[in-house]
Structures are given as structure tokens and as C-alpha cells.
């Protein structure tokens, strides 16, 4: 059955109004970001922002932390998801529940708990020095990314025949480390990559954890600029949007390639 003309009109109206709501703030922000010089539009605000050492340092810091988060997250999540599917399918609901908990516990509650547990008075004073705090921040980011990363990897694992691959590798004499490294990881490349890009997008603009752990990340820098400048925040918002867009776009490209590969096989 085809939709009627009226329902199609309604659909168009919904899409046009929706697009308006979503595009208007972007247009307004972009327009505002160009108005730094009094005589007409210019990219002055972008120039100021991009050449600001504070921008470069905080963005580089957050990018590095995002990479570490992805690394730690993958090393933690992939073997676990693999092992659960292969050996402990009964544990699956429990592990899934744990990975969804970060959606339940607000980030601000989590970091409050960290400060109590790992603060100067705690049993493991990670926040006592900068490297320790960085480590805690990375672990916090891994926790925030857990729901997305685990789901991506788990879905990727479901698409391949983990048992047969593992048994084949075992019969050829592979140990667990080799199985993970040579069989499971390559097969999960697309799932891992899409999880990684999402993790990058989450970490790069994160404010609460970095701010309360007092680390010089991009999120707190954004907040500082927002409180003190007029046009630079708009330029930063556009840059942040482009970074998110790039991460999501890469994620789409990766998963589309996978879909195309899948289609070839059938």
C-alpha cells in the first residue's frame, strides 16, 4: 500500500519543520562566529581560536586521552565479549546489565564516587599526582563509553561464527592470545572501528569528569572560553560540531563498507 497524498504532505511538513529546528542553530552559530570584525564577515574568530595555545594544548590532550580510552576499552571489552559468547553465555545478561549501568548512573555521580574512592583520603590516592589523575580520567571515559563500545563489539561478534573460528584455530594449535589477535580482532575490525569513533566523539567534548578531576581537557577549555569571550565560543561550537560530524561520518563509512561486504557474500 502506498501512503496517501495527505500523509505524504504531513511527512514533508514534519521533515521540513524538523530540519528547520536542527539547522537554524547551526546557521545562527556559524553566522555569529563570522561577526568578530565590525566591518563585515570574517574568519577572525576561527583564527583566534585555532592559534590559541590553550585550544591546541587542550584539544591535543583530549585527543590523546580519547585514543588511550579507545585502546583500554578495546582491550577490556573485546576479550570479555568473546569469552562470554564462547564460554559463559549464561553470564550474558549480567555483563550486558553492567555495561548499561553508565547510562543509569549520571557521570557527575560517578566522578563524585571517584573523588571519594581515589581522592587524597581514599585507599588508592590516584588523584595525588597528574599521571594518576590522567589514568583515572581514562578509566572514567572507558566507563562512559562502555555501553556503546560493548554493544558494537557484541553485535559484531554475533555476526561471525565465533565457535567454529575458535575451534578451527585451536585445532591448528593456536593459543588464546593468538586466537584473539589473529582471528577475532581482524573479524571485528569494523565493529571496533565504529565503537572507536563513537568513543572519540564522546571523550573529545566531555566536561564533567575532566572539570571535576581538574584536568586540562577540551571540555573545561570550552567552558572557560564560553564564560569569557563573545565570538570565539560560536567558532568553537562549529569546530566541535565538525569534529563530531567527522567521527560519526567515519563510523558510517566503516559500517557501510561492512554492509557492502556482507551483500557481496550473499
Amino acid at each position, binding site marked *: *500500500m502506498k*501512503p496517501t497524498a495527505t*500523509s*505524504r504532505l*504531513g*511527512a*514533508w511538513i*514534519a*521533515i521540513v519543520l*524538523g530540519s528547520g*529546528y*536542527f539547522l*537554524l*542553530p547551526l*546557521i*545562527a*552559530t556559524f553566522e555569529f*562566529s563570522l561577526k568578530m570584525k565590525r566591518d563585515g564577515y570574517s574568519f577572525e574568530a576561527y583564527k583566534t581560536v585555532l592559534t590559541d595555545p590553550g585550544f591546541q594544548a587542550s584539544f591535543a590532550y583530549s585527543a590523546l586521552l580519547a585514543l588511550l580510552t579507545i585502546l583500554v576499552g578495546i582491550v577490556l571489552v573485546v*576479550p*570479555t565479549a568473546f569469552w562470554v559468547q564462547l564460554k559463559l553465555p549464561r*553470564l550474558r545478561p549480567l*555483563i550486558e546489565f*553492567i555495561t548499561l*549501568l*553508565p*547510562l*543509569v548512573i*549520571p557521570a*557527575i*555521580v*560517578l566522578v*563524585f*564516587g*571517584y*573523588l*571519594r*574512592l581515589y581522592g587524597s583520603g581514599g585507599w588508592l590516592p590516584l588523584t595525588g599526582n597528574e599521571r594518576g589523575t590522567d589514568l583515572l580520567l581514562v*578509566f572514567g571515559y*572507558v*566507563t562512559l563509553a*562502555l555501553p556503546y563500545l560493548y554493544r558494537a563489539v557484541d553485535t559484531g561478534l554475533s555476526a561471525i561464527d565465533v565457535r567454529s573460528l575458535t575451534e578451527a584455530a*585451536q585445532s591448528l594449535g593456536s593459543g588464546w592470545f593468538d586466537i584473539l589477535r589473529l582471528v577475532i580482532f581482524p573479524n571485528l575490525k569494523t565493529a571496533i572501528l565504529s565503537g572507536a569513533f563513537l568513543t572519540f*566523539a*564522546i571523550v573529545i*567534548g566531555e*566536561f*564533567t569528569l575532566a572539570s*571535576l578531576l581538574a584536568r586540562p581537557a577540551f*571540555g573545561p577549555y*570550552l*567552558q572557560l572560553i*564560553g*564564560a569569557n569571550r563573545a565570538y570565539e565560543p*560560536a567558532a*568553537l*561550537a562549529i569546530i*566541535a*560540531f565538525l569534529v563530531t560530524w567527522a*567521527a*560519526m561520518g567515519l563510523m558510517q563509512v566503516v559500517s557501510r563498507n561492512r554492509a557492502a561486504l556482507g551483500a557481496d557474500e550473499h
Partner: protein
Amino acid sequence: MSASSESMPTPTSRTASPPSAARASLLSWLGVAPFLAFALLFLILPTVLLMAGAFQDAQGHFTLNNIVRLFDDNIVSAYKISLEISAASAILGTLLGLLLALAAIRGGLPAWIRPTLTTFSGVASNFAGIPLAFAFLSTLGRMGLVTMLLRKYLDVDLYASGFSILSFAGLTLTYLYFQIPLMVLIIAPAVEGLKDEWREACESLGGSALAYWRHIALPVLWPSMVGAALLLFANAFGAVATAYALTGSSLNIVTILLYAQIHGDVLHDQNLGYALALGMVLITGSANAGYIWLRKRSQREAA
């Protein structure tokens, strides 16, 4: 390899002696031990300690004083505003997101609209926090583009009429920017699950479009909708950065209050902070419990 024996349906695994089976299962558990240890250290223990701290005084003795103090006017009103903004942005986000998903998936529009909407939703649902606040200040702030255009061309002065981006309405409008896309992403599979045959069957039995929606589509979508609304609610309730960047610490919502407590902006009272955190976890926790329950239910019905 002893660890793999239990997974293989060979006679040997059934005749394996109990001690080695126990060792095999112990080995299997070792495989998830790093993950469980991580979850314990960075997810469960920090939360549980806060929850316990809510019932202790500064010396560590049991007290209900912190809980009682949650009922101070200031804190009650913070919870109230938080709940209202979360509920408003969750309900509006659910309805508008559903409409958008329906339009894109079942509206008979050109094929490119749907993947475009999905991709954009992926971006927008992650475009939260501080940049989002900047974007809305550029749009609906005192000097924002829309504010200026309305004043110039329609002679409407938003701020004179009582609107402010820092108000309840302003914040809700801002939150919708990540709530609607999140809803589109969550509800798309359920909208896709509405089979064309159902509508055809309804029509061939003489049912109107209204009857189709009332008796078929909405009852099918309802559990997913309520579940999604609960998820959106928890999402908004835990948000800090957007509100903080928009309003500084002037807006009295729970996350800002807790942020100020931790940051030491106000009189530092850790145990009251624990109680605030306990209240938040109870609220987001019950919203999510409702979501999980509804998802289970809708899955069972679909099966």
C-alpha cells in the same frame, strides 16, 4: 585443552570427572575477571560508597540527617525543576522524534531522506554539552540570530515577552536538540517493524486511518515509546554541561547543585552531596528499570 572441553558436545566432556570440570569453570570465570574487576572499581564501588555515605555523618556514624536535609526548600525546588525539565524534554522529544521517524520511514518520501536523518541523528544526539549551549546562545540568546530576526522583521521581542534561554522553556528547547535525535535512533527499529500488511488488513476490513492508529500502530509502538521516554528522561536528568555552560551556576537544578557541592563553589558539605547523588541515582535508576521492563515486554510480544 581443558577449558574448551565443556563446550564440545563429545562424550568425553560428559564423562569428565567433577574436579576438572570445576577447574574448567574456574578458568572460564578467569576470562571475565578483568572486566568484572574494572566494573567493580570504576562503576559499582564508587556508586555504592556514595550511597552508603548518604547515610553517614562526617565521622562515619549512621544518620538519616542527610536524607532529611534533602527536603530543604532549596533542594526540593532543584529536584522539582530538574524533574520538570527532564519530563518536558523527554515527553516532547518522544513525540517529536516519533513523528520524524514516522515521516522519514513510512511517509513515502524520497529514499535519501531516511539515511540522512539517521546520520544526522547520530551526530546531533552526540552534539550535547558545552558546544550545544554556545549554539543556542547564538540562536536564541539576547543577541541571537532568531531573537534579532524576530525583532527586526516581526517586531516580536522574545525577551520582553518573558522568554529567556536560561529559563525552563529555553533549557527544554535546548535539550530537545539531543533528545529528538536520540528518540529517532531508538524508535526507528520499532517503526520499521510496523508491517504494511497490518494496514492493508485494517483497510480491507473497512478500518479508517484513525482506527489503524488506535487499534494497531499505537498499541504496537506504545511499549517502545514509553521505554524510550524513560531513557530520554534519565538522559536529561543526568545532564550537567549544557546547563552549566548556558547558565553558569545560576540555574537551580540538581546536577548543578551537586557540581557546586563537589567543586566547592558553595559551603562544602560532602555528606549532603552523597544524599543528592543518592536521590539522582534513585530517580534515573527507576526510570531505567521501567525502560528495561518495558523492553522485555515488547520483545516478548514481538516473539
